């Protein structure tokens, strides 16, 4: 009979791995040539990349940057294949700002720069929290910079939030149940009835203002970014409320949310945009000037919020019942449990879907071309309408595509960074 008794007397220390387990050789072998099929595919792909570079390369290398028209470009190229990027150089301000008055270009530029300042504390925890105050007033500031006019309008409009909070705090000791509702309704009344007269009054007493710019002068990437950023900023909170409403036990709340989501999701965005641009005018009293960009922003926001609600509902469904029970058993009420326990986890799970919706929304802003707003795509048509640049397609579309790609890729990278930062499950 074989000896089966065994006792280890000394424990083995860990040793260095063999060379085949580390370094570049291993990487190449595992990732590029792990079998004959993968080897062939690697070589074929490399050949394709080289072929593509050889064909597209010269088009870029020969690019003409200095020309006043497509004809001039062709003259310079003299038959060789090359891009006429001069159109970008020539129409650069237009692609960025549309028909915004050229002496005021600094205003949208400053608004964009300040946007990054306002976003920083929300995006990166290392930025001082005090900067969030700037983020809070940024919407008013950006509105004032972009549209101009009296400074009092955004100030009075922002004051609506202060009115709401003041009403809430004043009523809370007296009527605790009515206070939150009154706090929500008060600013709406403020915006509907008080903003215009109060603004007029303040502007008469102390006129502070800059040149107003009308909405029909807006265009290009300025327009895309205005619609995109506002839509993104508003659709997330609205989507969260809709998702919570859809999961609510309250029949009426649930029905309204489900109805809203299903209706908005079931209708193409372009229909909503046409509604915004044409049909709304029939319903509004004659002579009402309801800003077209505002109308579009509202429609885009509602559209994205419906999608957002479903993405977040998916995240909510992934939170185990035990989390709700633990929150309940500690005495947290519904809103605290949602804000502190459920939503942080649900939103974290939903990040890819949320960013997906953001990117979709940003690209969908190009649809406003159909209701006569000059987004970058609309501008490219406008540029071609000029005899100088009649017939130029590739260069403009490539440039517009590249600009959109930069924004969307940025959002995508940030979302991946965020997912890594918030990863606490250590699976």
């Amino acid at each position: 009979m074989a000896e089966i008794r065994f006792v280890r007397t000394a424990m083995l220390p860990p040793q260095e791995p063999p060379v085949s387990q580390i370094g570049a050789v291993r990487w190449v072998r595992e990732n590029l040539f792990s079998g004959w099929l993968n080897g062939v595919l690697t070589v074929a792909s490399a050949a394709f990349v080289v072929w593509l570079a050889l064909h597209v390369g010269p088009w870029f290398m020969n690019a003409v940057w200095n020309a006043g028209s497509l004809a001039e470009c062709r003259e310079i190229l003299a038959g060789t294949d090359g891009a006429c990027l001069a159109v970008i150089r020539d129409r650069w301000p237009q692609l960025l700002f549309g028909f915004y008055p050229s002496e005021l270009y600094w205003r949208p530029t400053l608004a964009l720069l300040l946007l990054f300042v306002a976003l920083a504390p929300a995006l990166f925890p290392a930025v001082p929290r005090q900067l969030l105050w700037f983020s809070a007033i940024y919407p008013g500031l950006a509105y004032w910079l972009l549209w101009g006019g009296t400074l009092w309008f955004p100030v009075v409009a922002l004051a609506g939030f202060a009115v709401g909070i003041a009403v809430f705090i004043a009523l809370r000791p007296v009527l605790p149940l009515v206070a939150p509702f009154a706090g929500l309704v008060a600013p709406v009344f403020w915006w509907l009835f008080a903003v215009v007269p109060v603004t007029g009054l303040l502007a008469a007493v102390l006129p502070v203002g800059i040149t107003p710019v009308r909405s029909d002068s807006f265009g290009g990437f300025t327009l895309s970014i205005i619609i995109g950023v506002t839509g993104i900023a508003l659709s997330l909170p609205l989507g969260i409320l809709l998702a919570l409403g859809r999961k609510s036990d309250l029949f009426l709340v649930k029905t309204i949310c489900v109805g809203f989501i299903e209706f908005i999701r079931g209708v193409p965005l372009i229909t909503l945009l046409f509604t915004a641009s044409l049909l709304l005018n029939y319903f509004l009293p004659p002579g009402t000037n309801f800003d077209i960009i505002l109308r579009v922003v509202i429609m885009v926001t509602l559209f994205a919020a419906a999608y957002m609600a479903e993405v977040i509902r998916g995240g909510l469904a992934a939170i185990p019942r035990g989390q709700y029970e633990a929150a309940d058993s500690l005495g947290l009420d519904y809103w605290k449990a949602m804000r502190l326990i459920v939503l942080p986890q649900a939103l974290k799970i939903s990040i890819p879907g949320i960013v997906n919706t953001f990117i979709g929304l940003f690209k969908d802003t190009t649809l406003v071309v159909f209701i006569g707003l000059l987004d970058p795509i609309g501008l490219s048509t406008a540029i071609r309408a000029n005899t100088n640049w009649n017939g130029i397609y590739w260069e403009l579309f490539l440039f517009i595509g590249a600009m959109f790609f930069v924004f969307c890729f940025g959002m995508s990278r940030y979302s991946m960074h965020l997912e890594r930062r918030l990863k606490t499950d250590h699976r």
Partner: protein
Amino acid sequence: MAEPLHDITVDREIDRSRMRIGSEVAIQIAAMNKWFGTFHVLRDINMTVHRGERIVICGPSGSGKSTLIRCINRLEEHQSGRIVVDGTELTSDLKNIDKVRSEVGMVFQHFNLFPHLTILENCTLAPIWVRKVPRKEAEETAMHFLRKVKIPEQALKYPGQLSGGQQQRVAIARSLCMKPKIMLFDEPTSALDPEMIKEVLDTMIALAEEGMTMLVVTHEMGFARQVANRVIFMDQGQIVEQNEPEPFFSNPQSERTKLFLSQILRGH
């Protein structure tokens, strides 16, 4: 589903000097019934718990023992009868429910720690947001209880980095941070490996030694014998037998109890 048959006893002398049962009533349940849809899951439950009592509730799967203690902090709603916890009756009044919940701690089978928060944040969240305790004070309290459950060094880690036994001890500390008057344990050791069961039971015994009122749903009969002052046996949604541990185990009266004990204590 087969229930675990552990009977781990604790190998130290239990300090009974502070285990006093007061005359004050902590929980009063009268003629309480509950249905899940058409299924009558709790039938005519009558039960009085005095301050300082340590009650173990046992019974086969589906006997309603978890549902019973979940009714005490309204994680489940009862349909008839009365439940009065610490003088507050549980009705649909949300204020009463929140009041009871902040006085009653609960420990779950699957710990239910908040995975996105550190251990310390898990422990300070409810005191800060429900009790409005200043952050610094809440953190001091949390560290005090984390020391008590013997894992202060894990305070800045996330739940996912801890073992099951450690997570359950954090869950106990998290409940204690709310300074509850009553603690409910819903099968606190059923999801744990044997070596981790002991560390959790040790923590629970330490809690009992301080005079905490405890209701424990468990299959740990060793714990019941050593710590409980009363054992309740449930079957088919009813309280079938209750007694002090010694006579309960040595001389069960009901046939159902005898059958259950013979199954769970097999081999001892």
